[in-house]
């Protein structure tokens, strides 16, 4: 087989695997795991967005979830009984990307001079400000419905079929979670594609240059302000899309989904997977979503098997194991589970 054929065969195989995965998982492990996969995909999209900001451009952003929130609330407000608007998802999602991108610039612009941990704390503050506004904008005019959140959001529809409803096709019933899975996979692939293309371009190089040495980058003629703002905007718009998907999938949004811990979790995915390395980030997103669920299933029964009784609360044990896993991974793979190997890529290309 020629390399071209091989690449094609590889792609086809991955495509088939991705297509069959939810059916297999749904029928063996149950739809819970398909739903877990759905969330994993949303987190992967988020992590890929944050990766642009943190991984490529080296800007530590602890308020990233704010963009997710912006996307989610935009969807919620435009497609729910709250304002009686029922826009189609396909109009809202791109708008969400745009609005979130705008918020990205809004955050980026005043913080350009800040470095490292100062930037981290300002972005954290920004994230909290957004959340607090969402939580409070039910007075004096009710915009966000405050802490009660917005319920009965329209499901995302494809070709007139709301994905929340099971679909009969090819003699198989696809439950809602599976349908969403397909949508999310497609979007995640698109975003991976954008990420890879950007990384391997003039712009991607400029981001890395800024990360490596901002002063030298400036002296090389890079307009660091614009390039940084671009990173913020791109990352934010990915977050905005993910937020819209989340709102449509969950059919409910409330401010508590957009707390600081979520930002930290997404950051963990990026770093633990391998900052700046797209496959690594995907792995990170996948692991950090699946792991706690696996612990949820494992923590009780495993103890039962090992000690004959449940010694520790499964819930505490689950979080405990999660914390320990974070520590261990970092100790043994400080650059992440699947770090960037820049020179390897370059070598491969030369041959």
């Amino acid at each position, binding site marked *: 087989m020629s390399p071209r054929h091989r690449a094609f065969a590889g792609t086809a195989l991955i495509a088939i695997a991705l297509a069959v995965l939810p059916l297999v998982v749904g029928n063996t492990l149950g739809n819970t795991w398909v739903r877990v996969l759905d969330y994993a995909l949303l987190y992967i999209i988020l992590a890929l967005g944050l990766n642009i900001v*943190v991984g490529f451009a080296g800007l*530590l952003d602890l308020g990233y979830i704010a963009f997710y929130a912006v996307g989610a609330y935009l969807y919620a407000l435009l497609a729910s009984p709250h304002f009686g608007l029922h826009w189609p998802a396909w109009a809202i999602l791109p708008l969400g990307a745009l609005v979130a991108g705008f918020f990205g610039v809004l955050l980026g612009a*005043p*913080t350009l*001079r*800040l*470095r*490292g*941990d*100062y930037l*981290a*704390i*300002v972005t*954290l*503050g*920004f994230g*909290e*400000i957004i959340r*607090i*506004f969402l*939580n*409070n904008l039910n007075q*004096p005019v009710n915009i966000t419905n405050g802490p009660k959140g917005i319920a009965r959001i329209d499901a995302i529809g494809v070709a007139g079929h709301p994905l929340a409803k099971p679909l009969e096709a090819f003699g198989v019933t696809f439950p809602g979670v599976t349908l969403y899975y397909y949508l999310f996979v497609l979007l995640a692939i698109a975003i991976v594609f954008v990420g890879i293309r950007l990384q391997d371009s003039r712009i991607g190089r400029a981001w890395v240059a800024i990360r490596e040495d901002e*002063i030298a980058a400036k002296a090389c003629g890079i307009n660091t302000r614009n390039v940084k703002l671009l990173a913020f905007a791109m990352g934010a718009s990915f977050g905005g899309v993910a937020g819209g998907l989340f709102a449509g999938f969950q059919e409910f949004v409330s401010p508590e989904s957009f707390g*600081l811990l979520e930002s*930290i979790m997404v*950051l*963990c995915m990026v*770093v*633990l997977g391998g*900052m700046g390395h797209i496959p690594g980030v995907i792995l990170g997103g996948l692991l950090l979503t699946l792991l706690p669920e696996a612990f949820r299933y494992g923590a009780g029964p495993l103890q039962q098997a090992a000690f004959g009784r449940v010694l*520790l*609360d499964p819930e*505490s*044990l689950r*979080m*405990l194991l*999660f*914390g*320990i*896993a*974070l*520590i261990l*991974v*970092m*100790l043994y793979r*400080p*650059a992440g589970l699947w770090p960037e190997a820049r020179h390897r890529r370059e070598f491969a290309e030369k041959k």
Partner: protein
Amino acid sequence: MGDCQPIIPAVDIFLQQIFNGLTLGSIYALVALGYTMVYGIMGLINFAHGEVVMIGALTALATAKALLAAGVPPPLVLLLALLVATLVCMALGAAIERVAYRPLRNAPRLAPLITAIGVSIVLQQVAMLVWGRNYHSVPQLLPAGSYEILGAQITEVQLIIMAVAASTMLGLMQLVNRTRLGRAMRATSESPAIAALMGVDANRIIMLTFVIGSGLGALAGVMVSANYGIAHYHMGFLLGLKAFTAAVLGGIGNLAGAMVGGLLLGIIEALGAGYIGDLTGGVLGSNYQDVFAFFVLIVVLIFRPSGLMGEKVAERA
């Protein structure tokens, strides 16, 4: 019409808000000192510091309860509880440093941040297993009296907290800026390898810094729980976050900055909660207290990118 409130605040209420802010601020400062200490040496946000504070509070509480039950007189109980908590936290700090941070000394910058988050989760869960999910009430060990100044109340506990925060800061500044150990700490913070050439055992210095920072955490924990009369395994997170914000506001790595940042944040929060409503004609209320605080933080950092007291970066192009 009848709702019309005087815009000029009543003196007693205003003064009370200042006291509130100073107390809260001193607490932030006390915790922030621990952050800044470690950050100053290692350039590491020790995300687990808030949890160390929590462990300090709960350990002191457990000790105090046991001692009170054994009939030990309260002043002695306080001292012993503080002592035990400090020792436990110091040991904890040493362990955290050894296990979670030392192996990552030369790792990418964000790696220790993630282990710090991991440690923080682990400490919380362990505390939950040991002390349960419930809130604990804290026996009154510090003096309970209070004074009235121009109609505003201030308790002895509050005065003690302010005094402890201020003297801790002064003590630390003395240590870091004036002593041989402090110089070694600062040298290590820049380059452990070069400091080693001067005979500095970087491992020892870093460990020591951690131990001091964590001991401070215990002190902070005791003060916090004494002030609020309540302790819980989850108390460290938010406190840590606020304190860290304060440290950044003041200029992280700078001890005086931690104090200034803490006090400022405390006063901003108190005045924010107290007066935003009146100032905005009721459109915004105390629910925007944190927005206000973060807004101030952002504005300060825009004009002073390394915090209020932060040193200019001594880097040359």
